[in-house]
Structure formats: structure tokens, C-alpha cells
């Protein structure tokens, strides 16, 4: 804990940064890739294969995704614990967003843990290649479709709203008007990303 206290500024800044780069970037890539499933199993499988041909993929995944994600998650859960939510008392818009950011943090954490295990880690140990068929098996079941959809909403919200607070935390948007504009941009981003992600889910479920 002493370490966390002494390097509080650096750690908090890294926590904020990792949410955007690389995790946010990966999320965008992932949603866009998945949306190719709308074009049919072949289009999707092609994209997936292209990725799987990247040299040292496992190392890239560990260094640029797994470690930052673990860092962001573990600290993030601690930060969730530190907050004492009071939306019932102070019903302000930003307070709801603050609360939802923490709720989606936990939902996303549970979902990603499940998703990463079924779709990547467990599969890697079992030696099964990811494919349209594999995902379709899961998503064609309504219950799992709903679970994936909730996971998608949580992750996309956490990212979009996180972008709004990122802009404040790094001193990019300062005045109330700038922050308001960023709010609008983030809301639109949330809608667009939800649409892209849903497209992918529908494509994979079909």
C-alpha cells in the first residue's frame, strides 16, 4: 500500500491512460473486427485469421492487452471500493454517470473475465481455433446473446464515459462549455459503438 500512496499520481495517471491506450483502442478494434460477421462467416473468419498470423501474437496480447487490462482492473476495483456513492441523495446527471461508471466497471470485469476465458484463454489451452462457428455456437443461444449484449453495453459505456473523464483528468477540457461539448461527443460515441458492437453480435448469432 505504501507504494500506491507514494506513487499515487503516477499510478492514477497510468490507470487513466491504460483505459484509453491500449484497452480502449483494443475495444475499438475488437468491435470493428466483430462487425465483419455481418458480412457472413467467411468475411469474419478472414479477419480473424489475419490477426492470428501476426508474429509473436501471444506476447503482443500479454504485453499490450493482458497486463494493462489486469492493471486497470485491479486498481479500478480498488477505486470503486474507495467511492461512497450517493446518487439517491444527490440526483445530479454527472453523479449518475459517476455511479454508472463504477457499476459498469464491475459488470465489464465479470463479463471480460468470462469472455476472455471462454473465447481466448481456455480455448488456447484446449487448442481450439477461434472461428465464426465457435462464436455462433454460443451466441445463437438467447441467454448468452443477452449476456454478451449486457457485457457490450457495459464496456462501451465504461469506455465512452471514461473518455469524458479522461479529458478532464488530463486537463484537456477545462471550462464548463468544453466539458459539455465533450459530453455530447461521448454520448454519440456510445451510441455508435453500441451499434457497431450489436451488429457484430447479430452477425455472429445469425
Amino acid at each position, binding site marked *: 500500500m505504501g507504494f500506491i*500512496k*507514494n506513487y*499515487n*499520481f*503516477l499510478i*492514477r*495517471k497510468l490507470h*487513466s491512460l491504460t483505459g484509453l491506450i491500449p484497452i480502449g483502442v483494443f475495444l475499438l478494434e475488437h468491435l470493428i473486427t466483430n462487425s465483419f460477421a455481418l458480412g457472413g462467416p467467411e468475411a469474419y473468419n478472414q479477419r480473424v485469421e489475419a490477426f492470428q498470423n501476426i508474429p509473436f501474437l501471444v506476447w503482443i496480447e500479454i504485453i499490450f492487452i493482458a497486463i494493462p487490462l489486469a492493471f486497470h482492473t485491479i486498481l479500478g476495483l480498488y*477505486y470503486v*471500493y*474507495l*467511492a*461512497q*456513492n*450517493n446518487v439517491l*441523495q*444527490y440526483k*445530479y446527471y*454527472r*453523479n449518475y*454517470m*459517476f*455511479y454508472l*461508471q463504477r457499476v459498469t466497471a464491475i459488470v465489464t470485469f465479470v463479463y471480460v473475465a468470462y469472455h476472455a476465458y471462454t473465447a481466448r484463454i481456455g480455448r488456447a489451452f484446449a487448442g481450439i481455433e477461434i472461428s465464426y462457428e465457435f462464436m455462433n455456437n454460443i451466441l445463437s443461444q438467447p441467454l448468452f446473446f443477452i449476456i454478451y449484449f449486457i457485457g457490450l453495453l457495459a464496456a462501451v459505456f465504461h469506455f465512452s464515459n471514461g473518455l*469524458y*473523464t479522461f479529458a*478532464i*483528468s*488530463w*486537463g*484537456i*477540457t*477545462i*471550462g*464548463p462549455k468544453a*466539458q459539455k461539448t465533450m459530453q455530447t461527443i461521448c454520448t454519440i460515441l456510445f451510441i455508435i459503438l453500441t451499434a457497431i458492437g450489436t451488429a457484430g453480435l447479430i452477425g455472429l448469432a445469425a
Partner: protein
Amino acid sequence: MAEFIHLKIKRQNGPNESPRWEEFKVPYKPNMNVVSVLMEIRKNPVNAQGQKTTPVTWDCSCLEEVCGACTMIINGNVRQACSALIDKMPSQVITLEPLSKFPVIRDLKVDRSVLFEHLKKVKAWINIDGTFDLGPGPRVPEKERRWMYEISRCMTCGCCYEACPNFNARSSFIGPAPLAQVLRFNNHPTGAMDKEARLETIMGDGGITDCGNAQNCIEACPKKIPLTTAIAKLNRDTTLYSIGRWFNR
């Protein structure tokens, strides 16, 4: 308006005692506020059940919302009791509770000394050599003065702390009010000479990065001090300062 003002007050005899609710009925008069209602109770300390009780303990001083003393939770929201006008209260029953983020002393009176400790921590002052006459201070553009004046109206009442989800017993967050003071003193021509020391302080444990951008502070502030703008500006200052510091090692 009803004949009586119905109050529900969360009372507590001392820091380690358990709280209890007591109800009061105070004869209605026009233009009352929560402080004047509490003053009526002490003239006749009898509760709604007609039992004799002790007068309610609470803090107040100026009664014009400048001193910040009478801050409490009224109908669930933090505000000053003196400016809580009864005629504008929507609810039938008015509930009064002590601030929840600070140790209760008795009834509605709490210990807010931590607020002043935080001001000390961030060196919220201009380090003058002495009060002797050295002639005028630095010239200040009126435009600059106006927003610095906005921040210097902070009465350290604790509303922003009370509403902030990230200030609580678990966290060591320094709170919104002193952060705004850092900005105000860092931007004064003389105050800027201690800028680095202040930035270093708020980059430490419980510092500015512990703000979670719930932005309740600006909603709760009775003086509408631009706290969120100040925090965002300081985020920029600390970020740039930390990068500069790293390269200047």
C-alpha cells in the same frame, strides 16, 4: 401553510453515542428559516410528543450565509440552515441531520477541523515576508481578479466535501475546496512563487488524481464557486508539471 412546522431531527448526545430521531412541532410564522425554527425549540424544549427534552445543539453564527457555520443536511441535501427558508420547503416534514462525512460532536454540530487542515496542507496563503509597509502589491488585471475573487469567496462550509462520493472514511482525498484554493494562489503573481510546492502536495497521496469527476461539488456549492473548472485546470497544470519534472531530472 400548516399551523405547525413539523421537524424530524437526528440527535446524538456525543461522538460515541448512538443517534436517535426526535420530532418537534414548532408554531408556524411567516419568513422563518431552519435556524430560527431551532431557536424557537430552545425557547420551549418540548418534543412533538409533549415531552420535555434538551434544546438541540447546532452551529451557527452570521445567519446570512457567509460564515458557513450552520451547514447541515436538510431533507437529504447538504446546505446552510440559515438560508433554508421554511416557506420554500416542499415537504411536509423537514428532516435535519448532521453532516455525515465529519465526526458528530453533538446533535447537528460536527467537527470540521479537517477542512482547515487541508488548507494548511496545500499552503493556501501568500508567503509574504511581513505585514510591514512595503508599498502596494503586484498589479492585478481586473479580469483575473474576478475569477480569483470567485474562488476566494469559499467559506469552508464543507458542502462540496459532503456531496463528494470520493471523500469519505475510506479515502484520503483532499477534497474539492482546497484544490480550488491551490489554483487561486498559484495564479497570484506572488503566490506563484510557491506554485511547485503546492502542485507537489496535490500530486501526493489523496491528491487531485483522486477526484472521480462526479462533479457533485459544483452542484452542492452554495457560492457556485467554479470548482470543476479549477480542478480541470489543475489537472492540466499537474500533468504538464510532472512531465516537465521528469525531463528536468
